């Protein structure tokens, strides 16, 4: 029988250019915070899932390097990869360890030190994240390039403009400016965004998430243990997951990420939420806005808006606090930052704090139904994980 699983502790480092710490030191910031939050010690953790894409950073066996530094040894561990969704994959595995009864307490910790390599090397590594042999080797696509293929298709199909997309950046910087953990704590204007340079036409620098160092950790526990630890557990109600082809040429549509749609539908079904009523049910969402186009597609893929109307949501400011559904009140990947494999745990940490009404006042969503949704995409819709959290266990 599947057991109920709760988030009992979260940790989240400051995101940004973190030349002040090494990879294990950065991971420790979040691990220590999560242990403190849960009221646990290292010896209580029975399994650790580490998400770290690496390549650009120096330690290939990052899981054991981090665990040794954090005093979590000889506990069982593994490092997972699902590109930018690695963090949600780590949470999924830690969830499974607890839900299945293998352990009572498990931790997912994500960390990325992207600034250990020069920017051209990082651009090279992320550009290879798709199908290296058929789409990178000869054609040199980049991460913004892959998403630009979607933005071009969306603009032509629905008449969206570059200005429209800049409004996503404006919203996410608005909230990033109110989040002390964010990489960019500065508001921006549509004009500033429009005058930023093209990095992969029609995607401009301000449409894009930055290169980020950061970490986040999430401690999960079984119902029995969670009740002993806390009066305010946040329950993982559902995790949906799907994937798509490595070659973008094998996709049928370039205005939606199929994996995101499937993962969302799966999660809604498991949580007993009607997709058509998602907007009324969910109090706050973190969606994968690696580029502004990605946030607009997420609105539609998750059923927040009809096809072609995601762009209306941002035009009409419906995803600010007070709108139909507040999205990315952390600043999102765009302003909070995108430490690739830590982004998933970062979303769960943020939403746990949102549901418990313990984030900064001017970016706190009103919690009515007690539901939050994390939408985490890996690569260009290659992987997708949608996690639904709730204040009630059923």
């Amino acid at each position, binding site marked *: 029988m599947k057991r109920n699983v709760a988030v009992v502790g979260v940790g989240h480092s400051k995101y940004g*250019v973190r*030349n*002040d710490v090494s990879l294990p030191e950065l991971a420790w910031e979040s691990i220590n915070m999560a242990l403190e939050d849960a009221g646990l010690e290292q010896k209580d953790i029975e399994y650790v899932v580490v998400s770290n894409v690496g390549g650009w950073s*120096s330690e290939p066996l990052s899981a054991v390097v981090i665990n040794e530094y954090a005093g979590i040894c000889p506990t069982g561990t593994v490092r997972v990869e699902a590109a930018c969704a690695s963090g949600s994959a780590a949470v999924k595995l830690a969830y499974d360890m607890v839900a299945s009864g293998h352990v009572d307490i498990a931790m997912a910790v994500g960390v990325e030190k992207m600034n250990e390599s*020069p920017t*051209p*090397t990082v*651009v*090279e590594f992320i*550009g*290879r994240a798709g*199908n290296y*042999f*058929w*789409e*990178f080797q*000869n*054609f*040199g*696509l*980049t991460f*913004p*390039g892959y998403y*630009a*293929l*979607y*933005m*071009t*298709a969306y603009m*032509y*199909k629905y008449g969206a403009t570059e200005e429209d997309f800049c409004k996503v950046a404006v919203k996410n910087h608005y909230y990033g400016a109110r989040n002390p953990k964010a990489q960019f704590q500065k508001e921006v204007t549509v004009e500033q965004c429009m005058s930023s*340079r*093209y*990095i*992969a*036409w*029609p*995607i401009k620098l301000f449409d894009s998430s930055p290169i980020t160092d950061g970490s986040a950790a999430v401690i999960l526990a079984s119902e029995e243990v969670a009740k002993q630890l806390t009066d305010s557990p946040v329950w993982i109600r559902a995790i949906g997951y799907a994937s798509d082809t490595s*070659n*973008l*040429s*094998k*996709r049928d549509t*370039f205005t939606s990420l199929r994996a995101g749609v499937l993962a969302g539908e799966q999660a809604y079904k498991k949580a007993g939420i009607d997709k058509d009523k998602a907007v009324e049910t969910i109090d706050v969402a973190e969606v994968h806005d690696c580029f502004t186009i990605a946030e607009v597609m997420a609105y539609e893929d998750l059923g927040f808006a009809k096809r072609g109307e995601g762009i209306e949501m941002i035009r009409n400011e419906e995803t600010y606090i007070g709108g139909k559904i507040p999205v990315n009140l952390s600043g999102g990947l765009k302003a909070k930052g995108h430490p690739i494999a830590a982004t998933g745990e970062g979303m769960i940490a943020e939403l746990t704090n949102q549901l418990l009404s313990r984030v900064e006042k001017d970016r706190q969503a009103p919690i009515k139904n007690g539901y939050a949704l994390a939408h985490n995409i890996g690569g260009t819709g290659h992987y997708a994980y949608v996690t639904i959290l709730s204040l009630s266990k059923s």
Partner: protein
Amino acid sequence: MSREEKKTLKDMYDSQMKQFFEFVESMKKSLGVPMFPDMKSGKALYFDQREITLRFIISVENIKEFFNGLAEGKLLGTKCKDCNQLYFPPQKDCPRCRTSNMEWIELSKEGELLTFTQINVKPYSFSHYDDYIVGIVRLPEGINVTAWIRENDPKKLKPGMKMRLEIVKREPENYYTYEWVPVA
């Protein structure tokens, strides 16, 4: 400016790295260890004394006809003789039938543009090229082919445009690949 005089993104990347390397070497000389302050934050950084070069050697034994086809001016895919499924990129195996009963077929050299982008900030290994446009084109047989498009201005392109495929020599590497050309 002639092509020879024009500074590429690679020249810029290389000169930045050279400057950085010289700075780190001078710091190492004075401190005796490869430690230097971060230009922005002043935090102490350590310059890795080991270097790795990544260049892969990949088996194409089962799709060598594809590359031989390029040299003969053809774009080839594979077709499953059991279920008629077309594969591009070509595959040795048909996962639908779980058989390997394939034949090589020449693909159409025309199609309709689905979407495109221009890569402005290029990966290091592409930084010696001018900005290039990448597009995905749908062939009449219903499969899509990703390739560069011979055009410098993305504003001159539009989804739905007719495109023609040419087998071309990629320079300066000097090898055959394929490219889309807008049909005027």
